[in-house]
């Protein structure tokens, strides 16, 4: 008989490891809660899942799916850390890297960046694809926050934070396909013309170097930045924050 999803002992298997979950959890949430890392970029434990970056793709009973949006069900056989899936993840990261202008040596977020850390963890050695070198302007209008759109990976975390937590709707997406981009919801399009504050949730959650606090860059020296110390897949304690916790001030 198939074990019920409601039973406290419901489990699914990820890479051959039995992992228990509670009803309503996604496969990604169940994995992270059990200390099993699945790469992800657009998932944030405090917001509804987005399913857009596809880095958390796993196979569920043999079929590929985003583990952040797939419900955990008893008896599922999930594969995540396989050479084939990690190859695809590397390709996704390479596409993200060539689509924007990710010039790590000059980026304030370097060493603390989820995109970079994930690329390190998965061993991305080259961009593989031709660089697009898109022309994107920065928005330095706000007194406390700088927006560098060159590094946007369209994870939508700031959009969700501004909507779900700050209730301000400062950010949105515009355009489709390769022209899709992050915009600021003000008539002028400038951040200074919104009610955005540096204390907003949306100001704290950018996984890459788009939303930056002015005069706060390069505070930790190389060697002691977050991902200098330990690779991202060994920082489970900071990644698997409980769902619903909204008071955290630092990056995801």
């Amino acid at each position, binding site marked *: 008989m198939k074990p019920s999803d409601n039973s406290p002992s419901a489990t699914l298997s990820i890479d051959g490891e039995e992992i228990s979950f509670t009803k309503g959890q996604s496969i990604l949430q169940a994995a992270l809660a059990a200390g099993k890392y699945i790469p992800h970029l657009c998932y944030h434990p405090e917001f509804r899942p987005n399913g857009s970056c596809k880095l958390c793709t796993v196979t569920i009973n043999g079929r590929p799916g985003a583990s952040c949006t797939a419900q955990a069900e008893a008896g599922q056989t999930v594969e995540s850390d396989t050479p084939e899936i990690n190859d695809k993840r590397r390709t996704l990261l390479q596409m993200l*890297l060539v689509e924007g202008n990710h010039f790590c040596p*000059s980026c304030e977020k*370097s060493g603390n960046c989820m995109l970079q850390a994930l690329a390190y963890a998965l*061993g991305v050695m*080259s961009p593989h694809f031709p*660089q697009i*070198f898109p022309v994107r302007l920065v928005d330095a209008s706000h007194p406390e926050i700088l927006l560098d759109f060159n590094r946007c990976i369209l994870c939508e975390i700031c959009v969700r934070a501004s909507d779900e937590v700050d209730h301000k709707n400062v950010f949105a997406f515009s355009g489709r396909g390769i022209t899709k981009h992050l915009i600021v919801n003000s008539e002028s399009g400038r951040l200074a013309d919104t009610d955005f504050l540096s204390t907003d949730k949306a100001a704290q959650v950018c996984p890459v170097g788009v939303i930056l606090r002015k005069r706060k860059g390069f505070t930790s020296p*190389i060697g002691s930045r977050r991902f200098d110390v*330990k690779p991202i897949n060994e920082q489970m304690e900071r990644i698997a924050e409980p769902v619903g916790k909204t008071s955290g001030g630092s990056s995801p």
Partner: protein
Amino acid sequence: MSKKIKVATTSLAGCFGCHMSFLDIDERLLELLELVEFDRSPLTDIKTCGPCDLGIIEGGVCNAENVHVLREFRKNCKILVAIGACAINGGLPAQRNQFDLRDILEEVYHTSVGLTQGSDIPNDPELPLPLNKVHPIHEVVKIDYFLPGCPPPADAIWKFLTDLIAGRTPKLGHGLLHYD
């Protein structure tokens, strides 16, 4: 080892920082010289590249001469390695890709402040012509291995070279693989 591995290196649109980091392997250079012999390289000052086992390229491609040198390396080297941010994704020189080349030259030589009288865009036939955009080298020739970093630390270069010379697939672990 009976025959030494022939190695050529060059810096295209780079700052020689990767070469400096390579020199930071310090006394391990002597160990390396037991195994390799340098052909064209800033270390030997040999100007053209002969047949080599390994070519190491620092810097991206920003002008016509870079293209010629890169093709010469590809033609002569069995294995070609892109070293550093500039070779891999254009790096700092590629920051000019945001702008039109003509506008940049105009601003630098005609309209910016503090120019000497009669300042003009250099047009000496000896100067290689700049390309409209700066490109990573894998967009011009096939590259076999990539060694990221700005620059890669000496230990990463050492790990990479010793792996490669020993016939292993080069693998950089945590702390050795970084993009900055």
